[in-house]
């Protein structure tokens, strides 16, 4: 984005905004993120005070409930930046990055002192692939993946932050991966936060389109940059017994992903008949 900070020398220290979903459900994505950053010579700090950025409440219209969380987020990360303890904030999520670097402007507009601090923070907050490619100048991480790989552009990442080239650049350099095209790759998966619960029928219909396109693409794995969309797509794939699955891009880049075998292993042979009563089993 145009209003992002530029660096004369590469940033050395960053704070990880891990996001609550990664923290609580997908720690392996957080670990992969740390590994990628450290591999490129960046020291990672993890402020333990961080919780949730407030997006669920904000999106649901509960701005009064979201605001304390937004202020809290600024209070945790902005002083680190201002005191130069860190050079940037990095998050493995397009959605949460959009919330803190984009929607806080709207949410904190009338909170004295906060708009300026939020703007300072926003300029130095980066989504992971954006940070790797645009800030660090990374073009390829030495990743290995054997299988058919595709990509889903998550909505906030693509249309709020305008990030698309960066994740594709990184994925296309993964060794051994066979790149496959995905129909409707820029279409919403139907997650939308509480939308998935409140408008479950519509959300599922949207998600089923994504699932159909994934199945038709015959991809083993669809990489994406948000664990929220990943949870939705995987929830549908799993329920429908499909082999394809969604993984976070950091997991692919950090070699965490193995491909499930194309043909399922033979089902376990029938269990032995129950021992007859006269058989001594002891």
């Amino acid at each position, binding site marked *: 984005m145009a209003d992002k900070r530029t660096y004369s020398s590469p940033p050395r220290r960053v704070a990880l905004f*891990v996001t*609550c979903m*990664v*923290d*609580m*459900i*997908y*720690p392996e994505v*957080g*670990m992969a993120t*740390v590994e990628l950053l450290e591999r490129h010579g960046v020291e990672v700090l*993890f402020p*333990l*005070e961080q*919780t949730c950025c*407030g997006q*669920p*409440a*904000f*999106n*649901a*219209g*509960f*701005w009064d*409930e*979201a605001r*304390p*969380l937004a202020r*809290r987020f600024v209070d945790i990360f902005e002083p680190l930046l201002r005191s130069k303890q860190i050079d940037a904030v990095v998050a493995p999520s397009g959605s949460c990055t959009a919330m803190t670097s984009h929607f806080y402007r*709207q949410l904190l507009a009338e909170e004295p002192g906060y708009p300026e601090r939020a703007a300072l923070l926003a300029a130095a907050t980066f989504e992971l692939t954006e940070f790797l490619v645009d800030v660090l100048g990374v073009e390829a991480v030495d990743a290995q993946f054997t299988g058919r790989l595709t990509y889903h552009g998550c*909505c*906030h990442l*693509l*249309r*709020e932050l305008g990030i698309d080239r960066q994740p594709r650049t990184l994925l296309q350099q993964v060794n051994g991966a066979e790149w496959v095209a995905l129909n409707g790759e*820029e*279409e*919403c998966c*139907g997650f*939308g*936060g509480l*939308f*998935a*619960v409140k*408008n*479950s*029928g*519509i*959300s*599922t*219909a*949207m*998600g089923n*389109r994504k699932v159909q396109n994934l199945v038709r693409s015959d991809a083993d794995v669809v990489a994406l940059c948000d664990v929220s969309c990943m*949870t939705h797509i*995987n*929830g*549908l794939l*799993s*329920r429908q017994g499909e082999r394809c699955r969604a993984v976070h891009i950091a997991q692919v880049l950090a070699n965490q992903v193995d491909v499930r075998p194309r043909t399922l292993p033979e089902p376990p042979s029938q269990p032995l008949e129950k021992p007859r009563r006269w058989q001594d089993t002891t």
Partner: protein
Amino acid sequence: MSTSAIDLSLPYKKRVDDALHNKQLKVALDRATGRMAGQRVAAMGAVDAPRLRAQVRQMKEHVLRTWPELLEQLETQVTANGGHVHWAKEAADLQRIVVEIARKANVQKVVKAKSMATEEVHLNQALQRAGLKVVETDLGEYIIQLAGEPPSHIVAPVIHRRVEDIAAIFQRELDMPPTLDPQVICGVARGVLRKEFLSAEMGISGCNFAIAETGTCCIVTNEGNGRMTSTLPRVYVVVMGLEKLVPTVEDAFLQYQALCRSSTGQQCSVYLSMTSGPRKPGDVDGPEEFHLVLLDNGRLDMLAKGYGEALCCIRCGACLNVCPVYREIGGHAYGSTYSGPIGAVISPNIHMEVTDVDKLPYASSLCGACRDACPVQIDLPRMLLELRRDVVEAEGTTLFDRAAMQGFSKMMQSRSSYENAGKLGSLASNVLARLSGGNLTFLPGPLSPWTESRDLPPLARHSFREQWQQRRAARKQIV
């Protein structure tokens, strides 16, 4: 597909469920929205789209800044051209004004070209109550008039019907012999409508834009019915939302280009009919009487309430065609004359009776495809978010939702309560997940809709922060 008329006053949930279970609707929407969206991309791609969008946006913002002056200029010009200008504050005012015009001119039959503003105020019903015969002449509008249905798309009112459905309606209502050939079906409609045009005393149309500097009302059509409506009957009435205004002829063609390319993917429409007043001595055709009725119905308030950006809308329907929600449920599920993302923003603002209107801002995943497609760069997701805030502030949500959000916010405001909730959640979800074989397949209460169609992984046994702290402790030991 049943032939019963569609009831927009059903509760939101029922409207949506009906739409999701309607297989014919799904086929019709898939065929049409995909095609229209593709045509738009091609047509906008053939020009400098970013420049065009920025120019139209700039022009529409200028209109809103100088709105009162431009409206006065329009009134002055139309009057100078020999036309009459009427101001309708609310729906009832518009109905009264048009019925009065018809009565004074001794009108029996009205032919109508497409107009969403007249749909918004239910003008047809008012005219029929006054004893007039009203015939819609846009093919799509004519079909839904025969079927007794409201439009389901701003530009393509019968988008919810497949050709098979339309043939069935014509066979039933017009004794058409069985056929699925669109040309034959159109021919039947043309035959019927030609007679109506020649016998009607009054034509009513909407207005795609009116030019303030010349007092010219413009309608953009492809079927020629607009031209017949505006030239054949003795009396011609244009109904126009207050915002459908451009300052100059040059601006009109700017908007025209954006409209054609974004709505139907055309470089230009088949017809562009421009009416600057009644027939003058020496004119070969045109109405004897010309009336322009300007409709407010909440539009001025929209600007005051902070939703003025939606008044930049040129009603091209591009946001509907790309909306993944619209594509699943169609227009009727919105329960309003205006559907899709723009409908979800306009409907709560305009003075219309819409059942469960508070649900419309939530009928979006906020994916932003609408904003990318909009030729006027309207930030629809931003306004949907603000409308949601308005709903909450007006206490339009359930007490449960409010309590849940307050609880959520409290929990997230403290590290310790967040971590404790995480530990508890991890324990509980892992027990549940083990019972159902790895993933959560059943969630209780308000979260149950998730697991109706989707699995959910349990929380991690050890959160990232736990792993991080362990790692750090281990590293310290090594050092």
